């Protein structure tokens, strides 16, 4: 049973820094069961939006509701039990094993004894079990990104209500196989009743995994809706300023972005 009430609602988020507008009346909702992708050019305000949605940054105007309550009303620990965030700028600690790092995903949960078995389970699921005893400082960038994802998923495990997963470019350092593995896992979590919102840059992956797409440009929502509607070559070419083509291979739809300046 997946409840139909959105787990995250943002209404009219407006934020400016030194009079420069960053976000301009951004509204969106993440419903349990759905994978929402936020896409848009660099500097569109995606990461800032994520900071506001996750309650770290207060908007000048507008409000964010997490499971029916204003997000500023949550304590950090309570918020962490409802909403797990994977940031882009995860520092890699030394002197901490992969397993210990994933265990820290359970920091906000009171039952500490289930942390280790759960962390082991997450590593097994993410195909990371062989790295369990490795020091985090000895991981490659891609390995660390997968470990951070495992920690983020561990954080949501066993959430009473449907949890919310916010991911900022979760596959930016991953090879194609692991990109699919990670996003497949994120979509599986959505299907299991969580709400997932991910900032993505790869248009193919977005088209393949997202149920809904929010296209952000210059701090505003340019358009949003079902992925099939938004992921159109003409629209994307216009927004990104480079040529995007669509090719079909036996029913499989793929978008190709060519690194050429767009004609218009």
């Amino acid at each position: 049973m997946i409840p139909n009430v959105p787990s995250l609602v943002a209404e009219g988020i407006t934020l400016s820094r030194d009079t420069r507008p960053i976000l301009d009346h951004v509204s969106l909702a993440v419903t349990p069961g759905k994978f929402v992708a936020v896409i848009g050019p660099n500097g569109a305000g995606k990461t800032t939006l994520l900071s506001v949605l996750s309650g770290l940054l207060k908007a000048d105007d507008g409000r964010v509701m997490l499971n029916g309550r204003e997000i500023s009303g949550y304590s950090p620990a309570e918020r962490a039990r409802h909403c797990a965030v994977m940031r882009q700028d995860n520092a890699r600690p030394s002197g901490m094993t992969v397993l210990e790092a994933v265990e820290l995903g359970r920091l906000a949960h009171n039952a500490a004894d289930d942390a280790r078995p759960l962390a082991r389970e997450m590593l097994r699921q993410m195909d990371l079990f062989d790295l369990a005893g490795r020091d985090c400082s000895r991981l490659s960038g891609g390995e660390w990104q997968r470990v951070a994802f495992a920690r983020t998923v561990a954080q949501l495990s066993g959430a009473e209500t449907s949890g919310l997963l916010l991911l900022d470019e979760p596959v930016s350092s991953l090879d194609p196989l692991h990109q699919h593995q990670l996003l497949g896992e994120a979509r599986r979590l959505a299907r299991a009743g969580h709400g997932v919102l991910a900032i993505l840059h790869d248009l193919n992956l977005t088209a393949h995994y997202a149920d809904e797409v929010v296209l952000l440009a210059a701090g505003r929502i340019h358009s949003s809706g079902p992925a099939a509607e938004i992921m159109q070559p003409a629209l994307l070419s216009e927004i990104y300023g480079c040529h995007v083509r669509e090719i079909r291979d036996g029913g499989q739809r793929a978008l190709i972005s060519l690194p050429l300046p767009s004609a218009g």
Partner: protein
Amino acid sequence: MNTARENDSRRRGRAHGRLWLLASLFPLVLLAASALGAVNIGLADLWNLVAAPAQVPEIVRAVFWEIRLPRVLLAALVGAALALAGAGVQGLFRNPLADPALIGVSAGAALGAVVCFFFGWEGLLGGWLLPLAAFVGGWLAVLVLGIFNTGFAAGGTAKLILAGVALNAMLGSALGFFLFSASDDALRSMTFWTLGSCASAQWPQVVVLLIFLAIGGMLLWRNARSLDALQFGEEQAAHLGVSVVRVRREIIVAAALLVGAATAFAGTIGFIGLVAPHMARLLLGGLHRLVLPGALLLGAMLLVLADLGARTLAAPAELAVGILTAVIGGPFFLWLLRRPSSWSA
């Protein structure tokens, strides 16, 4: 599959084993330091001091209970307090060069003490005005720093470090002024004080410092997991459920209590707060539930040994313990750094 699990458990097991090793070395170091000194006390006498006091010469009893033991314990407590504060501050700032002195408490305490010497007040209140002034001076510095513990997302910690640097510079200027204007006698006292010494140890001071160590240690211990999470960065830690501003405040208060009290009784002693936590991390890994007790034990042993050197090397004269902390701890630290890291799996 199994190798990974074994690797992780082995590493944990080894870290716990090493912590127990440190814990069992600690009483041996205390015992050795209690036995050695201007009057050497044999092992039999040490045993008899507890078991059969009547068999021990009165002079030995007096030396042991009134001078030796409080001094050894004070050194242990001061070393433990400085090392704990260092572990907390380094974890908070995620900076290996962070030192408890960074938050201004040492410089503030030094200023408090130097003002006392300047006006010749060090003997007032039965000698308690001096530690009190040092403690208050340290606290005032930290309170000023606390004003800067507001911002969070936008590099709050970096701002705090920079504020600490500015604060230290200003306190250093004030300190310089008093040193410059002081009479020769006062200047001598000030210089000795800033080199550190455990020579003034008495039981009441041991008890007071023990209380501060317990409070500061508990504040740090209850934030140990948050300190672990902070290693991912402050924002990510907040997403994991850490109340970053509160944790920051508690760590700084704990460090100020620990360093303020230690400095009040023993003067400014460098090196231990910086290096003991690193030693703990090299030996035990980075989790703060291991680093904090490890740093406590290493800091305590380091200062007990340094103080042993201070009162025996040039006997009957005394060396300033601050001269010896680095001489004792430096080579050990360098050896740890040179060793191929035991934390690569």
